[in-house]
């Protein structure tokens, strides 16, 4: 474990690895997006209640899944950085946050665009949308803390503690909001969770979800290597790399 972490955990090594891997993830993601969009917009049937409006599900639900998954990954990377002092993990956590916030924003915005024709209003205090809104606040808080602390090492460690505390709180927040929404409004119309989803919808949904994951992997690799380059700008490897690039 340790030799693995230190071999691949060195910024220089990770930089090369990211250069090699990111295009593959990006390419695979683009292919799956093409297939997923074809399935989502053309192959899948319209819903018997929501008509063509149901097609928003194929961008809304993957965004919502990613928003939560990225937070977990960010907190885990932060924890690894905190415990084993791996620079790459710190940079990875920092690089994940804006992407997670972007997915959260997309989940909220597409949820709102879905809500308008279905509920007749842009915003409903539905338990999931409300939890998603609070998740956005958690991401924004993390990013604000990162910019407030100038020293990168300190910022990474402080961010890791914040992300882990947030991770402990997320299930409690979600549960409390769920409890609140059942208390304050009767059974709401929920287009977000059809009881049993048909295969013709499930397949494009899953393809889109995997495309989102690969997209995240590709972009976070590029973002992480930028963070490392900035962090290690005075090291020999960064200087040599820049010289190679300039010569090309």
């Amino acid at each position, binding site marked *: 474990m340790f030799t693995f972490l230190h071999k691949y955990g060195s910024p220089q090594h990770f930089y090369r690895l990211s250069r090699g891997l990111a295009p593959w993830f990006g390419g695979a993601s683009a292919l799956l997006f093409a297939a997923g969009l074809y399935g989502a917009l053309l192959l899948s049937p319209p819903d018997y209640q929501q008509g063509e409006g149901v097609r928003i599900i194929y961008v809304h639900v993957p965004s919502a899944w990613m928003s939560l998954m990225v937070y977990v990954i960010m907190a885990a990377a932060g924890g690894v950085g905190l415990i084993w002092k791996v620079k790459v993990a710190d940079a990875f956590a920092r690089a994940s946050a804006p992407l997670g916030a972007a997915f959260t924003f997309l989940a909220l915005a597409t949820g709102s665009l879905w809500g308008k024709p279905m509920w007749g209003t842009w915003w409903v205090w539905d338990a999931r949308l409300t939890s998603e809104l609070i998740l956005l*606040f958690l991401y924004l*808080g993390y990013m*604000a803390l990162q910019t407030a*602390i100038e020293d990168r090492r300190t910022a990474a460690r*402080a961010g890791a503690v*914040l992300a882990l505390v947030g991770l402990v709180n997320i299930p409690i927040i979600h549960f409390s909001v769920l409890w609140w929404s059942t208390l304050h409004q009767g059974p709401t119309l929920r287009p977000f969770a059809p009881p049993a989803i048909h295969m013709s919808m499930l397949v494009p949904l899953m393809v889109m979800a995997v495309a989102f994951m690969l997209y995240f992997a590709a972009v976070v690799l590029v973002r992480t290597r930028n963070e490392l380059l900035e962090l290690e700008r005075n090291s020999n490897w960064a200087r040599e790399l820049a010289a190679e690039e300039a010569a090309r």
Partner: protein
Amino acid sequence: MSASARSGFGGVLRRDLLLGARQRSELANPIIFYVIVIALLVLAVGADAAVLDRLAPPVIWIAALLASTLSLDQVFHQDFADGSLEQLLLSHHPLAVLVAAKIAAHWLLYGVPMMLTALLVTGMLRLPDSALATLLATLLLGTPVFSLIGAVLAALTVGLRGSGLLLPLLILPLYVPLLIFSVGAVEDAARGLPVAGELYLIASVLALSICVMPIAAAAALRARLS
């Protein structure tokens, strides 16, 4: 807790209480803020009996939440400024125990007075007497959570430029469960419904916070200062 850790806890607690007692005006500020916020909320929504009946529980809790964020800066700020925080980190006692003592002192200095003020204010908000005991119970269980979660974020932002703006931004989302359960409990009590379920939920949030937050606050201090 070993005897030595207990003496460390007692020492920090006694010191913080003594320092706090010397600065009475700083202790009073969050309380004054608390009463002002309540007055403004009532002025904004109107003082009809019907509106106030509905509004008393959320107003009491929202004001408590905001006032507590105001006091959180105090947990570590002064110790950071005069360097005694560094001493704390170098102490041979476990840091989490010392931080727990600081949290306890913060609760005694700010949480308890706020709780008492809240009880006084209920008279102005027409909260039914049947809900008073529940309100007291939610505040008794809830205000320590303010100090516990708040200490982690106060440790993360100690000494930062603009921490006064950053701290509320970081902490308010984390107060959501406490707000929901507490207001729900007081509303149910005012309607004469059973409230044991909500109180258990708040108690479990408190229990979890007692276990996790002193350790997290110690880690946060180490992250910022070493």
